[in-house]
């Protein structure tokens, strides 16, 4: 118990330091990846209560995610990975434990508009055309109109949807809709990108292509990414580290480093290291 608090103090000091340095050299973060803690969870638990039952969705999860890092939360359904993401996003509060984002509470981070979220479904607003959907967060931030248009254009280019900017969401395929959702999440240049199984509704081919596109986008923007998935290959292909969660109750069972070099290519999916990593992660499930 005592050890925890001292650790905690050190963490606060560290994060405060990074905060000041970050404001000075914001532009260079993507180039020189400053490996300092961005998101920290300390002994986080989540208990859901319904009328008749109580479910412990998360139990004592302690995690820290570095700045500019790409991590995946991997696990079967019911392991609480989405709950964990929602706690990070300040959409729900944990029943126990602490969460710090860049040294502050998750709420402060949300109010400072540091988050970009991509949900399982695209959640595009039906009444807005593609470009207006991407525009939405910029309007909320109060960005000037001329600047908004420039930014939307470059985002459309980034996700390869320039030709579809004047279409309504229903005129797009599922994969395209999800790319719009990603562009929207990136619009306010979020420090942290939270993605909740964004590609799970897509077929395997589109999914692999979008995985690669996501990585190339990420290499340009350099946000911290937390990516929830139940696909082992997807988590390996994308991440620096994979956090493996196990269910009943949801808890962190292991953390697997992915030493594959970047940029990642589709060819890597067939490499022996890749297969080794798959079986390593699978083994870590067996152990549960």
């Amino acid at each position, binding site marked *: 118990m005592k050890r925890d608090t001292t650790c905690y103090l050190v963490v606060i000091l560290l994060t405060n330091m990074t905060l000041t340095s970050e404001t000075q050299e914001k532009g260079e973060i993507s180039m020189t990846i400053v490996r300092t803690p961005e998101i920290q969870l300390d002994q986080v638990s989540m208990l859901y*209560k319904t009328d008749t039952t*109580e479910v412990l969705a998360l139990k004592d999860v302690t995690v820290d995610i570095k700045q500019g890092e790409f991590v995946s939360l991997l696990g079967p359904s019911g392991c609480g990975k989405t709950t964990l993401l929602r706690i990070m996003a300040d*959409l729900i509060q944990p029943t126990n434990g602490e969460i710090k984002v860049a040294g502050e509470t998750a709420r402060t981070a949300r109010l400072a508009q540091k988050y970009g979220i991509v949900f399982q479904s695209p959640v595009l607003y039906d009444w807005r055309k593609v470009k207006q959907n991407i525009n939405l967060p910029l309007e909320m931030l109060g960005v000037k109109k001329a600047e908004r248009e420039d930014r939307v254009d470059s985002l459309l280019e980034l996700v390869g949807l320039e030709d579809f900017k004047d279409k309504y969401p229903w005129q797009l395929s599922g994969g395209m809709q999800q790319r719009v959702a990603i562009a929207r999440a990136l619009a306010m240049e979020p420090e942290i990108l939270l993605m909740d199984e964004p590609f799970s509704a897509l077929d395997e081919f589109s999914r692999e292509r979008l995985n690669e596109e996501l990585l190339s986008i990420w290499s340009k923007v350099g946000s911290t990414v937390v990516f929830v998935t139940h696909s082992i290959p997807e988590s390996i292909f994308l991440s620096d580290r994979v956090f493996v969660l196990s269910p*009943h109750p949801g808890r962190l069972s292991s953390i697997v480093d992915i030493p594959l070099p970047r940029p990642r290519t589709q060819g890597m999916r067939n490499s022996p290291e890749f297969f080794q990593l798959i079986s390593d992660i699978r083994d870590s499930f067996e152990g549960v």
Partner: protein
Amino acid sequence: MEEKPVEKNMGWSDQAIVKTTSKYAKPVSKVSIDKQKSKYKHQLGKKLTQTLLPLIAGVIMIMLWEWQVFHSLFNLQTYQLPLPSTIVEAMIDNRAILLSYAGYTMSEAVLGMLFGSVLGFGFALTATAWPKWGKGGLVLIASLNAVPIVALAPIMNLWFGDGMGSRIAIVTIMTMAAMAINAHKGMSVVDPLALDLMHSYAAKKHEVFRYLRVANSLPFVFTALKINTTASMIGAIVGEFFFSSKGLGYMLSNSIKVAKMPLGWSCIVVAAIAGVVFYLVVERMEKIFLKWHSSQRI
């Protein structure tokens, strides 16, 4: 308000966690009877405020009305807006005639609704069976929905005389459109895979209707029936305003003409009660007939 997260924090306390984790080896999906009881109590309380609040508000309104607060506020006389006590008095004095008139008006409404719904359903069947020409006809029937009933009343009076028949005709026309549109929607939004299944059974057209389309349209049919209960009451009452010598509508407009306001109001009260009862009966029927449908699951 902005600070609130989407999911409400339902007051999970640390204590609760300790309790569950210590009591049970596995704290997942355990039912605690104590908790259930208190939860039930809580819900009961919630329900109580939910019904009590509007009820109290209603009672206060009636009391303000009775004490002539509204009268002095809007500069009204009691012969313009009668007091609740005099309305109740009028209701009691005329209870026999009110009851028989209510029966008269209700039978117009129910009969008209039956005819209208059957006709509307028939139109929907035809329009689904022969879509190309049927849909064109359906557009015309739908436009009946927008025709003011008061314009229909004199014509129906010319056609069917000033007896019950003219009101039944008005109600029939008013209820037909809603049923035709809704039933048609229900029959045409059939799951394409279910149609394929029928196809694989080499089902004939009428068999597809019998086993698939009609069943699929039932929830829509009940929606239409619920809309039509109110519409049929309005049709019957408004139809009676002008060319009738019986019924709640007749008595209502007549009492206003001869300045018997309390009696007019008591007609409205009876009509409202009849309308609510009619609606609840149809809703009850829906519950019985649509047990299989997801909208009825809790």
